[in-house]
């Protein structure tokens, strides 16, 4: 170990001593209008690998022995500014001090970003099934294809290269923000902070990042440092009919003051009593503050805190029957109370983040960035509970016409008509009836509103070293540590007029009905914990190192990582179905996972216009906490057959770039192996030998899942005239299961896990957005600061999420272990065919204008209309778990309208978004 440190030091010293004879190019970049320094501008010497970034004072220095001399071109790039190319004269072996460089704000770009961010943010934190959107990751990308994916494809839940958001890393000031629970970034933790999140460094796919080993879908580091914001303020108001109706935002940045301090603040509010879908309230506030002190030229210390408490009403997935009766905006989760739409499913997130960042310039070529972050808070998801009382869901299958028509004694037309009338005329939660039931009954609540709650505390720390070892070699190394304590429980929110709640499970009897044998038959009140309570403890340590090598025609990199992750559940309740020591109460087995990985890639610059890049990687990741415990609410049992997941990825691109045309064509292949997934649902048609009942609330555990993503993507942009730009993008991919995973189910209704062997999923499509997407568009930018653009986007090959249980032997096996007597293999194939959604085309229109009021003041306006022709389209859906076997499924599909048909989500119809801002 000491040897390693010694050799690193030697290398560092060598690199210091090398500086003395270098050629140096120095300069300062300022804002054209305000004369304020601009930080984080990428400065490149064209055709070489020499580059630098401006610091908080707008200055940059490019070093190196081999800096090309003579007449060269400097390229300056910064999001929100017009890219500059300026000719310079470089003399070797001396310091070349350039005059101050002025960069102008790219108004169209700045406005497009405003619109873009607001477009995608609302879709990022949707409910089950749509939570995996990665578009948030791509916002910072300037790649033609990825901006199409982020701005125009995201409303369809298109997933670039088939990846979920858990395959992408989001960092803020270098600290990873993906949750240990499910591996996904919790976007609403920084929702509404748009004005202070413009500064994002995006790394496409597995290519080299200077912060992290990365992941398949890429990584984004959002820089939220006070000194990195341009001096000035901004006030804006936005209005739309998507997830929120209104947004107000105000922010101010001091820039780096003469005394070395910098600060930045933001205040924002987003709100709606009802968003695009019925009954979806939105109530979000955002607070941000950052203070930074530049201690001296080598040290800066930054403190950043943000707190974005938000509540939003969720929207239900519905069967086609329900949409046909009530329209695509229908949401069964709400009903009127006190004249207000009260939503029974509200998601609340309040998880403030605090971080301290230290930036140490050890030498002009070496920087060390050390960060400590702490996040504390809760997330809650409310729902209605009901015990020994009818299901309050207005769209419950027994309330719909199809149920009456599917009557086993023949269609009940009268009942169907009554159900039709009632559902058409009302079809919402009857809150009054819930109160009435509780009050007239007079005992403990039969109906109650509660919250599935996580109280999390997470500590993160890391340190990232970046060192330019030689002119050609850059070293990046990082060590990360994270520790999470998560308390999960059900919390009573509203007894709806009842007198307390008796905490027993009415679907079980005797001891088994007790949620906590240590404290049986407890009657709880508002605010109390009940049903389940447990802690999850997780810790993760990992390290990564990377070398980037730059030569005149070839750049390449290699990187490796190693990590340790552990999870442990600590049950706080002794569940009546799992009374044994440490089965539900007390600590679970401690799960430990070791992960490692390596990646490498190169860019071959054929000439100034053509380049080829390729990346390859092989790495393992720990299963997420969510997929490690088979039924964490009730017991300590871990998933049988759980192992680290393995990812193999290769991709190659051809890049063509001239002043007129920018294009990229990429082919990719990746294999994600040994995954595990758990789902919970009520199943009908479970055949277990010796058990007569075929219904149960189950946990379905799928292990050894292999998925394959393969395809191509193309982005092309042509600057036809200085004002007109044409663009095109295409994604052609396939995301499929590559094997037949193992499946077993557990339930508190039967003692032992039931193994069903393989689930025959091979070659079924993995659900999630269209696999093919095509875009054609143009953009017009008038020199008088107004612009507009239109894109036409065509989507196809979207697939439904299939039920793995229905693809096991359970499908054709009766409770006696033999196939059903009337089993017909041909019909079974029909029944199990994966539904492919209809193709559709969406047209989006955007435009804006801005005015310069004086030297400092800008007034801007931006508007977009998405899905201008109000196309109705399905963004996703899933087969209901109720039809688990041939018998139940064939019976259900024999009806004209299926009682347990798949449930779908629909995308937004025509929708708009307008933003007005004042900048100073």
């Amino acid at each position, binding site marked *: 170990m000491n040897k390693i440190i010694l050799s690193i030091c030697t290398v560092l010293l060598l690199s210091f001593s090398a500086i003395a004879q270098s050629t140096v190019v120095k300069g300062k970049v300022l804002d054209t209008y305000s004369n304020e320094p601009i930080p984080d501008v990428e400065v490149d010497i064209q055709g070489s690998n020499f580059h630098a970034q401006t610091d908080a004072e707008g200055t940059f220095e490019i070093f190196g022995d081999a800096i090309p001399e003579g007449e060269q071109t400097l390229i300056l790039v910064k999001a929100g500014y017009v890219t500059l190319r300026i000719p310079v004269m470089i003399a070797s072996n001396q310091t070349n001090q350039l005059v101050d460089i002025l960069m102008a704000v790219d108004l169209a770009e700045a406005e497009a970003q405003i619109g873009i961010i607001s477009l995608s943010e609302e879709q990022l934190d949707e409910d089950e099934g749509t939570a995996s959107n990665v578009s948030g990751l791509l916002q910072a990308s300037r790649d033609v294809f990825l901006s199409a994916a982020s701005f125009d494809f995201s409303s369809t839940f298109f997933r670039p290269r088939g990846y979920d958001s858990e395959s992408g890393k989001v960092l803020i000031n270098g600290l990873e923000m993906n949750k240990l629970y499910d591996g996904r970034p919790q976007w609403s933790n920084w929702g509404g902070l748009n004005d202070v999140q413009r500064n994002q460094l995006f790394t496409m796919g597995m290519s080299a990042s200077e912060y992290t080993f990365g992941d398949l879908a890429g990584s984004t580091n959002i820089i939220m440092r006070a000194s990195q914001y341009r001096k000035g*303020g901004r*006030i804006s*108001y936005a209005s739309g009919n998507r997830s929120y109706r*209104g947004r*107000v*935002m*105000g922010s101010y940045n001091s820039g780096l003051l003469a005394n070395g301090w910098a600060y930045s603040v933001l*205040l924002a*509010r987003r*709100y*709606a*009593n009802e968003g695009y879908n019925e009954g979806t*309230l*939105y*109530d979000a506030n955002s607070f941000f503050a950052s203070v930074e002190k530049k201690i001296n030229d080598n040290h800066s210390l930054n403190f950043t805190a943000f707190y974005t408490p938000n*509540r939003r009403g969720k929207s239900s997935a519905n069967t086609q029957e329900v949409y046909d009766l009530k329209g695509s905006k229908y949401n069964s989760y709400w009903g009127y*109370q*006190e004249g*207000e739409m*009260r939503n029974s499913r*509200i998601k609340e997130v309040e998880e403030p983040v605090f971080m301290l960042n230290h930036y140490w310039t050890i030498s002009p070529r070496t920087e060390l960035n050390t960060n400590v972050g702490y996040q504390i808070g809760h997330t809650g998801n*409310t729902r209605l509970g009901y015990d*020994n*009382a*009818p299901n309050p869901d207005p769209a419950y299958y027994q309330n719909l016409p199809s149920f009456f028509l599917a009557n086993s*004694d023949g269609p009940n037309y*009268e*009942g169907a008509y*009554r159900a039709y009338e*009632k559902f058409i005329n009302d079809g919402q939660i009857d*809150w*009054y009836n819930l*109160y*009435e*039931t*509780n*009050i*007239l*009954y007079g005992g403990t609540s*039969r109906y109650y509103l509660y919250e599935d709650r996580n109280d999390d505390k997470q500590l993160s720390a890391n340190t990232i070293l970046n060192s330019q070892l030689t002119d050609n070699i850059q070293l990046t190394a990082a060590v990360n540590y994270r520790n999470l304590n998560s308390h999960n429980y059900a919390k009573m*929110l*509203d007894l*709806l*007029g009842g007198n307390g709640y008796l905490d027993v499970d*009415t679907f079980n*009897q*005797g001891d088994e009905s007790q949620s906590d044998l240590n404290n049986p038959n407890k009657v709880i009140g508002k605010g109390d914990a009940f049903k389940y309570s447990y802690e999850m403890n997780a810790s993760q340590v990992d390290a990564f190192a990377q070398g980037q090598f730059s030569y005149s025609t070839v750049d390449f990199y290699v990187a490796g990582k190693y990590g340790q992750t552990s999870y442990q559940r600590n049950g706080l309740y002794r569940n009546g179905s799992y009374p044994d020591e440490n089965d539900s109460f007390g600590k679970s087995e401690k799960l430990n996972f070791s992960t490692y990985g390596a990646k490498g890639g190169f860019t071959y610059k054929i000439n100034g216009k053509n380049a080829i890049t390729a990346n390859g990687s092989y790495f393992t990741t720990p299963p997420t906490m969510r997929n490690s415990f088979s039924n964490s609410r009730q017991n300590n049992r871990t998933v049988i057959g759980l192992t680290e997941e393995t990812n193999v990825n290769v991709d190659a691109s051809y890049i063509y770039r001239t002043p007129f045309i920018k294009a990229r064509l990429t082919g990719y292949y990746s294999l994600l192996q040994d995954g595990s997934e758990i789902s919970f649902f009520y199943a009908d048609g479970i055949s277990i030998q010796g058990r*007569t*009942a075929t219904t149960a609330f189950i946990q379905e555990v799928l292990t050894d899942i292999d998925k394959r993503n393969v395809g191509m993507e193309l982005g092309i942009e042509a600057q036809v005239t200085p004002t007109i730009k044409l663009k095109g993008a295409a994604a052609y991919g396939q995301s499929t299961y590559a094997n037949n995973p193992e499946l077993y189910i557990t339930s508190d209704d039967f003692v032992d896990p039931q193994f069903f062997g393989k689930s025959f999923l091979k070659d079924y499509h993995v659900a999630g957005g269209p696999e093919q997407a095509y875009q054609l568009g143009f953009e017009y930018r008038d020199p008088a600061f107004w612009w507009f653009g239109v894109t036409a986007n065509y989507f196809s090959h979207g697939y439904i999420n299939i039920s793995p249980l229905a693809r096991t032997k359970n499908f054709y096996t009766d409770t006696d272990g033999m196939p059903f007597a009337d089993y017909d293999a041909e019909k079974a194939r029909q029944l199990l065919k994966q539904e492919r959604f209809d193709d559709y085309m969406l047209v989006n229109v955007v435009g804006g204008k801005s005015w310069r*009021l*004086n030297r*400092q*003041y800008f007034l801007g306006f931006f508007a977009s209309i998405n899905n201008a022709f109000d196309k109705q389209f399905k963004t996703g859906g899933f087969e209901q778990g109720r039809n688990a076997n041939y018998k139940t499924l064939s019976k259900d599909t024999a009806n004209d309208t299926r009682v347990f048909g798949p449930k779908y989500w629909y995308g937004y119809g025509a929708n708009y978004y307008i933003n007005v801002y*004042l900048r*100073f």
Partner: protein
Amino acid sequence: MRKFQNIKILSFLFLIGLIATSCVHDDDYSVPDINMEEPNVTVNTDIATVKGMYRGFEPVRIESGDGSNREMYLEGYVISDDESGNIFKQLFIQNAPENPSAGVVISTQATDMYTKYGPGQKIYFRVDGLYIGEYAGLPTIGIRQGTDVGRIEIDDFESRILRSTTKTEIVPTTITLGSVNDESKLATLVKFEGVQFPDNLLGQYYGNLDNTFSVNRKIEDCDGRSVILRNSGYADFKNYPLPTGNGSLTAILSVFGNDAQLMIRDPRDVQMNEPRCGDDGGDPEPPSTDATLVFAGADFEDWNAFIGGLNQFGIKSYATQSLGTGVDNTASLNIATTPTTTDGNDYVFTANAIAGLPNQYSKITFYMKGSSSKSVSLNVYKTDGEYYKFNLGDLSSSATIVSAENNQYNGTINTGGNWVQVTLDLGGLPGVNVTAVGQNIFALKIGKNADYDLHFDNFTIE
């Protein structure tokens, strides 16, 4: 510059103003006022009148004249309670809280009616347009479904029922098991005194543990009369053991075809804590002279014969022949363990059937002596390989044991140094293997990790 300062200030004010006016309702809702007023209805018919419209066979439409649409309301008191799940989609009402003269059941798709229409609740029910009929003899108001009376849809039911502010206690009518066929008591709440579950149900449960089918359990009085108590496989008390004493039972009197049957609302309707009748409390009836040994060497005098008659698993080493310790100083089987002897619930031995067992059998009798910290469980095998289970439970004196659902070792045994007689009641248990010689007939099991020091002797069957 001044002008722009103003813009800044104005726009900040605008921002603050917008924030202040953009309230979204939080989730603190107050409890709405629930209407508790007496409904304003004219009661113009009653249960007896409606029942009187039924002429037998097909259901009859309830109306005040041919084709009339005049509203017809009757009043009644709810006697059913569907919370436990034993009663399902039925609302039983009678015409008075005490000494009713008529009762009827309303058949509906509605569930969980107990929340609003619990026992004792006075209701008004609009009956015109519905049908009166019988379901297997039970007078029922519902809809017409072919030639049967069917369930009223939930919405229709809810639009017809009105809740009075009156809620009173229902006093069940006390009758005897001799008058369960009295039609005037049908669909009313009745009570029986001095009843008990018969001997052969002792150790059984209210419902069916294996599935959700309903079961008929009988109750009997001390005069030998009995009636069916029907328990649903969905009842949440189905795994409660039946009470073993004698006492009262409150139930709704129903009928299925020619058989009267009772339905309880929940086990609080069953109060049986008094001593049973029929038990004389004296010495148990000893085995008769017809009794024969159940298996080879079942008196343990010929140990080799005993060992030779066991199945392939033989006998556990802690079970030995003990000379001079048996009944009348003969030999006995001694089982002696400490908590470390076994860590599983052991089969001590399983014996095969021998020739000459009685084709008609009623019981197995044996003697035992000693003490143990857990109890003993016994299997009596059937010809199909299945077996009946008998658990001795707590045992200190002679006892008659009836079969149970599964093997249990709960309880302790201490006979105080005396021989006691144990009788396994085979009454009503078909298929015991008295024919297939060489196949299992009898097994003795003990619990794990416990102290046993027991002597057994003279296993006989008759």
